[in-house]
């Protein structure tokens, strides 16, 4: 599996970021090689549509699984189109979440909140 997780810090021992679209980094963890790759999330800078842009980033990253506490319905559409399975994270570090996923202890994320929208005005 190629698992991706939104993170505040570039450490496997850090907790999962509460925001998906505006997380500063995304971890990409390959369970075959146990290698971690860190990508800065450019989408965090967007005035709007951050979830969509972040999801596009992940779609391009080769990830097939996402672990996150929450996700908007717009981002979900993109992730779905890219065949990325979305699981709900639990309390704990990124490493603990990865282990939980491998052990089949995580649940699929079933609720997606309404999309964020940019400008307001």
């Amino acid at each position, binding site marked *: 599996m190629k698992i991706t997780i939104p993170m505040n810090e570039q450490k496997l021992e850090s907790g999962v970021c509460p925001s998906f679209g505006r997380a500063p980094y995304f971890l990409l963890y390959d369970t075959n090689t146990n290698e971690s790759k860190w990508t800065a999330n450019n989408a965090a800078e967007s005035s*709007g*549509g951050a979830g969509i*842009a972040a999801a596009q980033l992940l779609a391009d990253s080769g990830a097939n699984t996402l672990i996150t506490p929450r996700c908007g319905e717009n981002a979900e559409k*993109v992730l779905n*189109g890219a065949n990325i399975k979305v699981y709900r994270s639990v309390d704990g570090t990124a490493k603990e979440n990865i282990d939980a996923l491998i052990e089949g202890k995580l649940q699929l994320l079933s609720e997606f909140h309404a999309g964020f929208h940019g400008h307001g005005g």
Partner: protein
Amino acid sequence: MADKPLTVAVLSGKGGTGKTLVSVNLAAAAGEAVYLDCDVEEPNGHLFFKPEKPEEETVAVKIPQIDTELCTGCRKCVEFCAFHALAVVGGHPILFGEVCHSCGGCALLCPAGAIQETDKAVGTVSSGRSGHVDVFTGRLNIGEASGIPVIKHLLGKIPSGGERPVFIDCPPGSACAVMESIKDADFCVLVAEPTVFGAHNLAMVYELVTLFRKPFGAVLNKCQEGENPSEAFCLEHQVPILGRIPFDPELGALNSEGNIAARENQRYRELFGSLLERIGKEAQHEAASDS
């Protein structure tokens, strides 16, 4: 008395100060009038006017429509879109309509000519009559990014060469929707509360109307005994105080039931009538001093 009917915009720095109270009651006191509710995210004026047989029109904007047969998946549209309204996954394009700002850029840039534009409803404008007032209410659909297209549509409802005064109930704050609402106003009424919050927010709209060079005056609402920081602001910045509405539980009760005080109560009919006259005089004075 004004020579030509006025377009008066009523604004405040934040919600809940009495913008709707003032604009609705001024329109009611004016007899024949036009009332526009530009607070399209949370319009409330119609709750007071209860217009008869309202007719609804859809307000639409243009959004892209992608022909998936022609689309090559080149992603120029995704890269261009400043609002992230487009994504391409598995070679297929996805459009997010409510994030789209209708700029037309993707249709312009698509090298395969795969993007056309189509209408998308973003809100409604409903028109009805309440007594002698023509009531126009703008509503933005939940989830839409910008109320500006609805406000533009509303402003188009102002009869040209009209004989009746127009009252515009603006959105709260000083963001772009407010700027759009006051664009065509002859005069701006700034409503303020007697608290430090009220004065702070009054300062914000004061800055806005000054920037746009609109003639303006203030109405102090919910006045009670004691210091009034908003009044102090007006005195310091030479903002004409057009009227004071005292804090009155009776007015609060009428208002919270959705009643128009100027229609139900003699005292308020007179209060808003005088306020209207004062606005007319002040606007005329400003116009004269400009020429």
